[in-house]
């Protein structure tokens, strides 16, 4: 018993478990010294953690003035066909419908008639796709407008990828056909349905 720690010392150490309480108070793992998207910053002068590109620079691979896929133009002329990278099929149109309904329909309307929910709430007139001018317009025009905007419409090049914008262009063509189809071109079954008013 002579080597045992005196009770007096043990009593003095009893407060040590209280230190555990302190351990719950640090938050340096929750808020680490790093930035996540959209966080404010007190380091950069403009207060943003996400940095804008340096003026007069482009991201590697994003500047493709010669590419019909990226610009809707070839040699300065609007393209009249989808770029070779885009394959026209049912899944492209289905995808185009999803993107169109999400990004375009608020103003242009689900049917492309310019009667979207925003158009109905403001003093703006949204052009319908179902006019001779736009029915005969080159597909590159729709892509260029979707990318860079026109008149009061803002550009969506930064929000929708080029592939998705082409899917929208293809779907706009389908919408135009849907409102301007020749009944005689339909299969016989569908023709009888049209005549029956279905």
């Amino acid at each position, binding site marked *: 018993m002579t080597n045992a720690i005196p009770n007096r010392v043990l009593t003095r150490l009893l407060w040590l478990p209280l230190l555990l309480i302190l351990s719950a108070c640090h938050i340096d793992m929750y808020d680490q010294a790093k930035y996540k998207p*959209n966080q404010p910053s007190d380091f950069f002068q403009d207060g943003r953690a996400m940095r804008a590109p340096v003026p007069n620079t482009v991201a590697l691979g994003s500047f493709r003035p010669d590419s019909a896929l990226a610009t809707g133009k070839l040699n300065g002329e609007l393209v009249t066909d989808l770029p070779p990278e885009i394959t026209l099929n049912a899944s492209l149109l289905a995808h185009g419908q999803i993107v169109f309904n999400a990004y375009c329909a608020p103003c242009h309307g689900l049917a492309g008639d310019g009667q979207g*929910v925003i158009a109905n709430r403001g003093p703006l007139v949204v052009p319908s796709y179902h006019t001779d001018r736009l029915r005969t317009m080159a597909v590159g025009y729709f892509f260029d407008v979707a990318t860079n905007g026109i008149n009061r419409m*803002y550009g969506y090049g930064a929000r929708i990828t080029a592939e998705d914008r082409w899917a929208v262009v293809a779907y706009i063509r389908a919408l135009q056909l849907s409102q301007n189809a020749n009944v005689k071109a339909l299969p016989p079954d569908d023709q009888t349905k049209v005549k029956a008013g279905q």
Partner: protein
Amino acid sequence: MSAQIFSRTANAYLRVSLIAIPLLLGGIIAALIGLYLSPWYTEAGVAKAQPIAFSHAHHVSQLKIDCRYCHNTVERAATAGFPATETCMSCHSQVWTTSPLLQPVRDSYQNNTPIIWNRIYDLPAFVYFNHSIHVAKGVGCTTCHGQIQTMALTAKAQPLYMGWCLGCHRDPAQNIRPRDQIFNVDYDVQSLPLAERQQLVVDYKIPTDGRLTNCYTCHR
């Protein structure tokens, strides 16, 4: 006669404290757990004030604007994408152009200064959540974000405790939905029979071999 060390009531004190002290300790622990789970601590269901009184209820429920119009990177990035001021102005340069409620948006657009919103879903820095993979594998917006179409001011729908994340990662069939219903805020996950949801887990190639519950799935 030597002095008594214990008073006459010492036995009673002892018996009462035998019951009272465990009750008190249990009560303190229960109260702490209650606080930990309460909206006061988790902020679940508590709407925060914002610099602009943006209403999801109006934009989602009344105008039927798709989630992706504003949160446009949700399908291809870790973050759903907080809308740039330009996104607000795409419509609000035309409608509500003189509303004083939207003055901070116009100021932000004209002066190229950010709008500082109060973050609702704030994950710890050691959690690496990725929106795109959840959206691609059949987890809809409302599964985590609640009935966003009813929120005038946005509130957190979940306390975001790890146990809640693990609930889904252990049994994905509980909250999965078809891919074409991801952005449908009115869709009810339970409307699909469990057997069909389990089939979705197979179809969408969601690993059920325990990989989803590995620590490094979310922590790196």
